[in-house]
């Protein structure tokens, strides 16, 4: 009975995370209404500790934003190397919404985690119906990709 109650009433709602989302780099310069517009297309997923969100080589079609918990981005070739440790407010898998390719790394949940998931087709829909919001969203994604590229270049140059 408790399980049924939790299933119906206990599920977290995206609107509960509105303030937290406003702080995320993904929604920088977004108004409350614009965030709401993106959230209409997004979905919430709960992952248990040690569950994989995706694996290296999988077809990428979605972006994930960490709402609660933490996620490790790692490579398994051949041993496990942690490339990044992501916590609340950060996002990963962003290449999947701008370019259809395969995942370049694996995402492993390191504690019980709540993720916001935005698919490529949802972003395409935002582009069609609300280009102004899509522009802001894609601009933020491009900025983060550029920052990560600069950081990687720096790491490679370091002796």
């Amino acid at each position, binding site marked *: 009975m408790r399980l049924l109650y939790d299933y119906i009433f206990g*599920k977290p709602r995206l609107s509960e995370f509105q303030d937290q989302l406003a702080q995320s780099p993904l929604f920088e310069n977004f108004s409350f209404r614009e965030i709401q517009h993106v959230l209409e297309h997004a*979905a919430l*997923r709960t*992952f248990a500790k040690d*569950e*994989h*969100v*995706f*694996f*290296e*080589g*999988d*077809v990428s*079609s*979605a972006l994930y934003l960490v709402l609660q918990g933490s996620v490790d981005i790692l490579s*398994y070739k*051949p*041993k*496990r190397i942690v490339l990044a440790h992501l916590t609340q407010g950060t996002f990963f898998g962003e290449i999947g919404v701008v370019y259809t390719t395969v995942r370049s790394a*694996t995402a492993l949940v390191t504690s019980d985690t709540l993720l916001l*998931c935005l*698919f490529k*087709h949802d972003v395409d829909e935002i582009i069609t*119906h*609300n280009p102004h919001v899509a522009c802001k969203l894609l601009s933020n994604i491009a900025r983060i990709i550029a920052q990560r590229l600069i950081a990687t270049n720096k790491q490679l140059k370091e002796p």
Partner: protein
Amino acid sequence: MTSLSTKFIFGLLLLALIGLVMYYYSFISFNIIVSFVCFLIIAELLERLEHKGFGQAHAYTLLILGGLVLLLVLLLFVSIPVYQQTRQFISQGPEIFARFQNELSPLHDRLPFTKTTTALALEHMQSALLVFLRDLFSSSSDLIVSLLMIPLLTIVLLASRKTLKESLMSLIPNNYFEVSVTLAREITDHIQTYVFAKAAETGALIIFFLIGFLIIGLPNAFLFAVLSGLLNIIPFVGMLLNIPLLALAAASGGGVTLFILSVVILILAHLFDNAILTPLLVAKIVDVHPFIVVVVTLVGGEIIGFIGFIIAIPAYVIAKTILVGLYEYLKAVQRHETLLAHEKNYEQQNTQG
């Protein structure tokens, strides 16, 4: 046998089982599928209106008003003339068939062996066509149940429109999530665009046929324009099925000249469809080889009759999408297992070392 192929065969069997259950409960399946398609179309229209700045209540009101106007137009300008002309055609049926046989008598004189064949074909066609037309307007219990069930199911689905996606998504386990959502999206997109494109194509062709038939003075032009347009839904085969139908129509008043003229209209409609409508509306959606289109359509028609002709292509594309998705998913699972096994081995070697 590898584990991938075993799993794939299991997936295939599961799909076949679902297909079999749907075939055995075809009436319920048909109603559910039609309701779901109606829901997808109305939901898409609602979403477009909402994105244009209409509130939910205004969007619903606008759609209901639009639907009522469309129904009224269809009733006054299509259904009533078609109904009247169908009644007329049924009452004149035997006479028209006899006249048609007379028109063919010069052919029988030259080629006597065609006499029995055409007589048999005409007899078969007469019974099939007249029974089809009679059934079309007779109120059977199935039709009444469908007329009640489809709007009811569509309304139920529309009422939970905002939460339906979320509820369905929550049922998917995490490891199938991304692949299932992408596949489901691909399938619903395909259904929506296919239905919109086919409806637009059929509507344009009915208007084309009607104008052509009215110009050449074909009797019962409304009835034959609607029938010819609807037959076009069946890929390739539909246009061929139109020829005997038009021959019959011409035989009801006008003879060989009218038949030739109506075939000219049919060819022009075919050109209009292939040169303008199909490239504009359908080609991008149905990216299937013409040979497969013909085979799949015939198989669909053989299994479930007239409805099979119509749904064969979308059903084939959906089944293909699911199978390709399933295969890709199983391949990905195998790759995940290999990755994890490699890491485990590496850790074990390191511990032992």
